[in-house]
């Protein structure tokens, strides 16, 4: 019977090892899990918000990145096991997540800024705006001397042969497809609200389908351009700006029909550390703090009072610069909140065909 202790010993060692690993992440400090879009954008948030907030409050911030898919949030809310505290989402999820009851309604009294202080459309029922970004397209001026200048050029494979990078979602692409097909700006969303308009947009996308490399994460487009995998690609302006500024790339942004839009902070329904989450959102919505972010990435603030704090040299790279706004095509958030589901389904089917 001498061997029995050995067996028990082995078992206990195993259990102990497991207990150790399970106990490891638990710490005495307060912790907040913040989820964002990775890459250069998350770097800028880290510098502007996470680090100073952690320093000021002693809260440990765990970062996670995602590609904007709300599956995990829904699973967490459905099963009452929310572990994400604050999430950075796009407009469409900010609105549809609210409609589907997976986001906590925002109490603006706790945000520190009254709703009126936000730019129009940046303060929603369940979401607090954090940046103004824009979907643009860009090319490598070292490889393309006489570069494209309009959205029509993006769709013109005769004039500019080669692969194009596009976001692997219908969002934004359908609008550009209609513009490239000759639709007037004011008519784009009216047309998209009819089945014929959607068909027309897909038909236009069909013409370049075989020349498209689809990207999902915001960090991919600058990489695709740098690797020469594509000659031009849609992207979020801050990512391209970062590649120009910090990696010395000769990328050029085409601002024609740029699509300015917001990103938002949201709190999943039933998140356990509500007070701490609000504390963070209030901190990040402070005009001075918010103005800091534009030092790291060329995205604009959503709180009006933050604008005076931004350096003039930075302002010209922001989507909100009047020069860049000339032919801007603002995203119709309501359209996407209502139609994204079915368009995404059709888009995925279209891709797979």
């Amino acid at each position, binding site marked *: *019977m*001498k*061997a*029995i202790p*050995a*067996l028990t010993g*082995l*078992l206990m*060692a*195993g259990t102990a*090892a*497991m207990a150790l*690993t*399970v106990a*490891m*992440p638990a710490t005495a400090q307060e912790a907040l*899990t913040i*989820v964002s879009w*990775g*890459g250069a954008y998350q770097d800028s948030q880290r510098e502007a918000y996470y680090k100073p907030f952690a320093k000021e409050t002693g809260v440990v911030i*765990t*970062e*996670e*990145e995602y590609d904007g898919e709300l599956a*995990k949030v829904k*699973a*967490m809310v*459905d*099963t009452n*096991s929310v*572990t*994400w505290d604050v999430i950075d989402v796009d407009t469409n999820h900010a609105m549809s997540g609210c409609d589907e009851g997976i986001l906590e309604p925002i109490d603006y009294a706790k945000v520190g800024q009254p709703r009126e202080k936000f730019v129009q459309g940046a303060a929603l029922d369940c979401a607090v705006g954090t940046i103004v970004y824009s979907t643009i397209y860009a090319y490598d001026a070292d490889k393309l001397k006489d570069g494209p200048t309009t959205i029509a050029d993006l769709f013109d494979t005769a004039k500019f042969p080669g692969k194009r990078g596009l976001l692997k979602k219908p969002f934004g692409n359908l609008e550009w497809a209609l513009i490239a097909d000759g639709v007037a700006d004011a008519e784009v969303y009216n047309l998209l609200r009819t089945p014929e308009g959607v068909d027309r947009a897909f038909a236009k996308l069909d013409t370049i389908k075989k020349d498209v490399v689809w990207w*999902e*994460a915001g*960090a*991919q487009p600058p*990489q695709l351009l740098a*690797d020469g995998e594509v000659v031009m690609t849609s992207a979020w302006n801050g990512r391209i700006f970062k590649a120009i500024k910090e990696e010395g790339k000769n990328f050029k942004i085409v601002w024609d029909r740029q699509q300015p839009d917001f990103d938002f902070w949201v709190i999943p329904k039933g998140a356990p550390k509500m007070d701490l989450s609000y504390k963070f959102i209030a901190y990040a919505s402070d005009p001075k703090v918010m103005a800091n972010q534009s030092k790291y990435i060329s995205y604009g603030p959503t709180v009006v009072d933050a604008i005076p704090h931004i350096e003039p040299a930075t302002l010209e790279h922001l989507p909100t610069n009047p020069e860049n706004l000339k032919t801007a095509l603002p995203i119709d958030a309501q359209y996407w909140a209502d139609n994204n589901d079915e368009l995404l389904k059709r888009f995925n089917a279209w891709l797979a065909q």
Partner: protein
Amino acid sequence: MAVAPYASPVERAWYYVFRAICALVLLFLIAPILVIMPLSFNAEPWFTYPMPGWSWRWYEDFFSSDRWQIALQNSIVIAVSTTILASFLGVLAALGLSRSHFPWRALVMGLLISPMIVPVVITAVGMYFFYATIGLTGSYLGLILAHTALATPFVVITVTATLTGFDYNLARAGAGLGAAPARVFFRVILPLILPGVISGALFAFATSWDDVVTVLFIGSAEQRTLPRQMFSGIREQISPTITAAATLLILFAVFLLATVELLRRRSERLRGVRV
């Protein structure tokens, strides 16, 4: 295999063509792995030859970056825990299954091996829904359990295979000499099947060490493992740090491979002695 003396010229020609074909296939197998190793020493962040210069910078990056280091630690913790748990459960089960008296053996074996066969996305999605309801997603325990389920088939297979050649008379002799069952196991059975157990444990380790799909679904930022970190790296930004990590993983694989090979030889020797 040499050319037989009676071979015709056609056969002789075929002999060399055949060898050339085999060499090409072996090249296909090994070349991709060899090609990326030197690139991890590239001074420039590109993936093209010839390389402009040599540097350790990507290894420095790997060892100094928090993300990679945390990923490395997570991988080790999760893989080691998985290995212990999977080996324990797997060896017990293999001992039971290798008794000739086992009822519905094929059926039970089929179920126990099924995690190896079921497409891993299905396993991951199923566990993701189920573990979420009991609060196991985003936890080390959840990942360890998931990996253990995926890893036990390897332990069961290797240990049952070793036990097929096992002579139970040795165990009976031990029992006949008055040893208790546990003592028989540790003093007689275990030393003899140890090579099988260790190679099963190595497979279990490798399963957990390699897995990215279940981590994608079940893990959260805190449980980011090496493959998970490489996955987002490949999708987002192929920095040469990935090739440095890959090279280290290849060296580690060589180490595991050598261990298994040594064990196999030892096992063969042991069996040779017994016959």
